């Protein structure tokens, strides 16, 4: 830092004093602006405010002493003003820390991508299952589960698919080896639907029952874009006195609105399932076009989503073997089941069902 030495002052009129002090202030400011390290700030403080060699001390000793008595007051005022300026410059320099130039040397390319750690993604099927289950939990449904390997009784016979009945043809079944010699009822198979858990629940618990059953099921189907031998269902069962078909309609209408938005409409069609009667298929207004008709809904405005119906008295009769309270003359109930993959494919725009089971990081990472 090069600062001119303090000159001797010869004239002490106001104009001369103003000019002399202005020059000093300018020097002080210039020097303060260049301060870039804590060491430089300390040097500045010593240079200007030091008790022995400080410049202000020098001004005081040279100019004040030399000044005539009548000029001492004006000079003193200007001296105090200059001192205040220097102190404030010093305060500012002390508070400011490193200079901008020093900081500029530490510049980063802020446009480089951030360093990322993987965030785990819940599987879209789990996510969809949980969403469905929580909608029904809010309606008072408990959660139930059952085994993936079932007996013929629970999967078929108890669900009113008698042995040899053509309705069994609609659910191609994977079977455990070596069952040929066992009684038909006891034969082990991979459950083709979550409906067996209806029977298991009723056998353990008298009415009222409200249960929602998420689970994995299997069929001996060739895989294609929309079919997989492995898939998931959510089953529901509600049994009590005075449960009606209109209750079934109201419950599913509410659930579909909760899952897909309050503007969704539902409509019900007659269908056939051996374990319900009357049976229905439920369509919702297309969630892509709002019902106007688009490619996704094949221009119909509707999307078929689930099967349901009133529990068939024959199913109650099977349950009644262990829980006599399931008397179809006194109680009634409804059941429903939906394919989780289909709903997840719709919600997330998945085009190939096989992607759910491939464990491809690129696919799964989209659901974070």
């Amino acid at each position: 830092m090069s600062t001119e030495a303090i000159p001797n002052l010869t004239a002490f009129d106001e104009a001369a004093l103003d000019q002399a002090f202005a020059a000093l202030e300018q020097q002080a400011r210039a020097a303060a602006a260049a301060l870039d390290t804590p060491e430089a700030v300390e040097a500045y403080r010593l240079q200007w405010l030091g008790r022995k060699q400080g410049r202000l001390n020098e001004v005081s000793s040279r100019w004040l002493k030399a000044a005539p008595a009548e000029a001492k007051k004006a000079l003193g005022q200007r001296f105090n003003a200059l001192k205040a300026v220097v102190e404030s410059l010093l305060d500012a320099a002390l508070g400011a820390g490193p200079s901008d130039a020093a900081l500029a040397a530490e510049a980063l390319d802020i446009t480089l991508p951030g360093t990322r750690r993987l965030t785990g993604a819940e599987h879209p099927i789990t996510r969809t299952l949980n969403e469905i289950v929580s909608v029904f939990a809010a309606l008072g449904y408990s959660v139930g589960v059952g085994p993936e390997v079932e007996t013929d009784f629970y999967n078929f016979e108890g669900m009113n698919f008698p042995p040899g009945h053509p309705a069994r043809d609609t659910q191609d079944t994977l079977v455990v080896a070596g069952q040929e010699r066992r009684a038909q009822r006891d034969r082990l198979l991979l459950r083709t639907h979550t409906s067996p858990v209806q029977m298991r629940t009723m056998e353990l618990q008298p009415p009222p029952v409200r249960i929602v059953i998420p689970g994995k099921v299997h069929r001996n189907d060739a895989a294609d874009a929309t079919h997989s031998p492995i898939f998931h269902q959510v089953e529901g069962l509600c049994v009590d006195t005075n449960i009606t078909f209109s209750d079934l309609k109201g419950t599913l209408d509410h659930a579909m609105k909760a899952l897909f938005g309050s503007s969704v409409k539902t409509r019900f069609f007659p269908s056939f399932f051996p374990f319900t009667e009357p049976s229905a298929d439920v369509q919702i207004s297309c969630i892509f076009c709002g019902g106007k008709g688009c490619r996704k809904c094949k221009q119909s405005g509707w999307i078929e989503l689930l099967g349901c119906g009133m529990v068939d008295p024959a199913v109650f009769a099977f349950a009644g073997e262990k829980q006599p309270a399931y008397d179809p003359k006194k109680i009634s109930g409804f059941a429903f089941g939906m394919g989780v993959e289909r709903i997840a494919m719709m919600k997330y725009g998945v085009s190939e069902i096989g992607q759910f089971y491939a464990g491809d990081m690129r696919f799964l990472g989209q659901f974070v």
Partner: protein
Amino acid sequence: MKILTKWLRAYLPGLPVEDTQLAEDLTLRGIAVEGIYDLGAGNGSLFEMDITTNRVDAMNHYGVAREAAAIYGLPLPALEFALPGAEAAGKPFSVKIEAEDACGRFTARVLRHVTIGDSRDWFAGAEVATYFGLLEQKLISNAVDATNFAWLAMGHPTHAFDLDKIEGGIVVRRARKGETLKTLDGLQRVLDPEDLVVADHVKPLALAGVMGGWDSMITPETRNVLVEAAWFDQMAVRRTARRHGLHTDASHRFERGADFNAAPVASALVCSILLANGGSVEGELVDVRVPAIEARTAQRAPVSLALSEVQRILGTTVAAEGITATTVENVLTALGCGLASKTESGSASWQVSLPSWRLDVEREIDLIEEVARVYGYNGFANTLPSFGGGVRALPWAEAEAAVRRTLLAAGFHEAIGSTFCSAAEATLTAPQPGLVVPLGNPLSEEAGVLRPSLVPGMLTMIAGNLNRDVSDVRLFEVGTVFSGSTEKVEERPALGFGAAGSLPEQSALHAGRAIDFHDVKGVVEQVLARFQMRTVYFDGFPGETGLMPAWLHPYRAARIVADGITVGWFGQLHPSEAAARKVKEPVIAGEIYLDRLYMLPLRKPAAREISRFQPVRRDFSLVLEQSVAWESLDAALAGLQIPELVEWRVREVFRDARLGEREYSLLLGTTFQAPDRTLREEELQGFQARVVEAVGKAGARLRS
């Protein structure tokens, strides 16, 4: 199945709606029209139908017309086909039903001097050629076309025999051991004694209700014909068809229940088409019936139906009046039921007789469904049942959620793998070899058994990623594993996990390093930390012990033991298994038996006081023999039981050329802190001396 609206309108000239409205109305009543194709002016539309298996009665034109008649309240004329007067027969054609459990009715009509050739239009308004043209159904010859036409019109299977090939008469019976029959598909079939056949007095002629025989089929040379229209039992036809691997239109219908009363009508329809090319009827229709079967099909006992029951099941309608007695009567009458009212204590109820073509309707609930169906499901209100009970979650729901959350937070994506694996993979990974459950009809050899472990699926998915050049893989699966025998299968929940690639996963600035055993061990420890347990340790087994699962690297893998119980295994994939999967990168994978973990209570978070006093860090640079594992230092430090020693850990492990060949360095970091005071230098020196002594006994010396 395809339906022509032109044909429907021939049965129902008064149909008051356009084809598109008709399709919608049918669909809303369960006779689903999947597609509508305009066939051009005057030809109406073609409906592509999707009819549920219980409604075989509606899988034909007359059946759909019956539904439309019920919807619009139209009268539907009965099907009748007049035949020319018969020439007297010497004696009636001989028909005998021996298998009275399986054949309920057999009608036979003899036609003489027919001409087999092209079909001719045979009566106004229902031209075979026109309808077949619109349906793109090939015209073959009048004999084949006639049975096809009867099938399309009324869904009743019929069969025409070359009469001159029949020896004696017809016998419907079970096949005899060793009998053979060449069927119309050209196959020579060996018959089973359970097979139901239509035979003559010498030989079988046809598989009853499934397929005709080659030797008695109609040929251009045929002059005399026997037309069969019969009723066969569901199970008998199903078993015969199954046994011979056949599924024909005829078997489809008979398996699901044919109309007992349709046989004579279908016979007349077929005969009238054949006779359009000339020929004559000989004798009366031979009609043999089995009373027991007639009683359970065409003459079923009436079913009681109460209006109160209809209302109890169906509930509230949008319309204020609800389901009334009039609604019930109109719907069921239109469907062909007969209703006899029986007034009981002021509430309407009926005795309902059932139509012969609706074998699926047999109980009160079936009638209630018919009422709801034709009334229209969307005419019912949306109501919600009241509920006063509580909601129960699964007992392990919270524990499972905690496991999932931990893996997700550690950066693992959740996957769902195959439920199956190959027998070889099962042998490699099953926790209990020998308890692997094979499938009877697997999808493929690679999916031959129920997975005993989540590891095969996990390895397949990891290899899939790596082989697709996705290098950073972190996957987990929570799923069921199976063990047991073909008699009894046990299912248990398990957690599978696997990782490959580098850490950090994506950085422009920092060099990655390969994810390793200890990275994954950290995740395992985090999972275990969600549960309350007294002890956790990890141990390995040298290769020669045979205790290490064969899929794991014998010196880079560990067993996980919590409270003395093995809860899982993890480690680096064995190099030969990696090579077998064409994987070059190290893969760290493992499995935790969740059923065992779920037996432990979840750890409940609890706060403890954090000391306000200064903690003091002291590091010790140690040298250890290669054979001394961290575990022994850890145990020695724990054994000190110094309350002020609040934490100790390995800060660094490294090899140093200046040390002996079988030695390594370890930088041990310790932290001392007291809850109630600042530690004094003398105290600290005392603690340090004890630490040095303890680790010294464990085999470590201070580095000078």
